[in-house]
């Protein structure tokens, strides 16, 4: 049955996001456990999940806090790790432009990898649907509650779960990111960008303060963008040469 009402779209968003809730759960659990084992205050950890609500950067932040990184560096790293949200927003903004500012501001807070993936997975890569925001809201509220819940469980159990880092729970985030990235690798420049960033992230992973992550991302973007421009120049030269031949 095709969903029609706001409520039906809300429920659909929730259901469609369900597998992503399952894969986010262990991630929230380790995040919570890591904060506990690094003696980060329970309120600080919970406040991050409630007010920042950005899994990947929270994870990076805990690692940085554990080695007493200056706050400014944690925030800059958070910013770069979160820059991808700009692209997600760019992909979805047409579909929300008719809504009130309050609605758009509310939806913006819940713009995560998972909700982006659910919305684009259901509505397509250039989504436009009059009830999209209800689906989106269902996805984001369920992700949000799920994330806070599992963070809380992780914090509470943190010290009772020895070596939780060695259980392999972080593979859940690996597989989620693989599911998001591979469909985006549509042409050679994107492959080059991804491969460059991957190699750099391993080569410079030992740099302090996650600077290797930043460097890897920027080199990947530079290589990808550069090769895209080169490919475009090449093809326009090709066309002009072709025209001369005619």
């Amino acid at each position, binding site marked *: 049955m095709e969903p029609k009402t706001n409520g039906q779209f809300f429920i659909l968003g929730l259901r469609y996001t369900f*597998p992503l809730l399952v894969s986010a759960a262990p991630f929230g659990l380790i995040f919570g456990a890591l904060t506990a084992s690094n003696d980060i205050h329970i309120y600080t950890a919970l406040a991050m999940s409630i007010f920042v609500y950005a899994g990947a950067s929270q994870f990076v932040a805990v690692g940085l806090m554990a080695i007493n990184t200056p*706050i400014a560096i944690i925030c800059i790293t958070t910013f770069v790790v979160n820059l991808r949200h*700009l692209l997600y927003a760019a992909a979805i903004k047409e579909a*929300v432009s008719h809504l009130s500012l309050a609605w758009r501001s509310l939806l913006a807070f819940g713009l995560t990898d998972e909700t982006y993936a659910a919305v684009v997975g259901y509505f397509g890569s250039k989504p436009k649907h009059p009830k999209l925001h209800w689906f989106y809201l269902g996805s984001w509220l369920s992700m949000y509650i799920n994330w806070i819940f599992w963070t809380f469980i992780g914090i509470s159990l943190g010290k009772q779960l020895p070596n939780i880092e060695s259980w392999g729970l972080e593979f859940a985030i690996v597989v989620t*990111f693989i599911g998001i990235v591979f469909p*985006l690798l549509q042409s050679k420049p994107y492959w080059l*960008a991804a491969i460059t960033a991957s190699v750099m992230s391993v080569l410079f992973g030992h740099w302090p303060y996650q600077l290797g992550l930043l460097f890897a991302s920027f080199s990947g*973007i530079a290589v990808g*963008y550069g090769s895209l421009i080169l490919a475009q120049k090449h093809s326009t030269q090709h066309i002009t040469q072709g025209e001369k031949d005619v």
Partner: protein
Amino acid sequence: MSDILLIVGMILATYPTRWVLFGFAQSLTFPKWFTTALTFVPVTVLPALFIPIVVQPHGNLWLNLNNPYLVSATLAAIIAWKWRNILLTITLGLSIFALLKLWL
């Protein structure tokens, strides 16, 4: 105190990147080169986050078939590439990883 500062800083480093395009949805347009460069952000940031977990799960480079992270991630990547379905990728990827973890 410094924790409050950190949370506020992280909010300021997170919410604006999510909000700016929605907030100015009707009026804001970026130059072409910038939006093109942005399309490379997810394909670089996400691999830079997960590839180190896959190839060095315990801190040292581990590039052979005994590494369950590497094997499951490779299979998940093939599934993701072939079917372009994130839900399928997650379900199968996690199942493969769980089986390998139990066996190895």
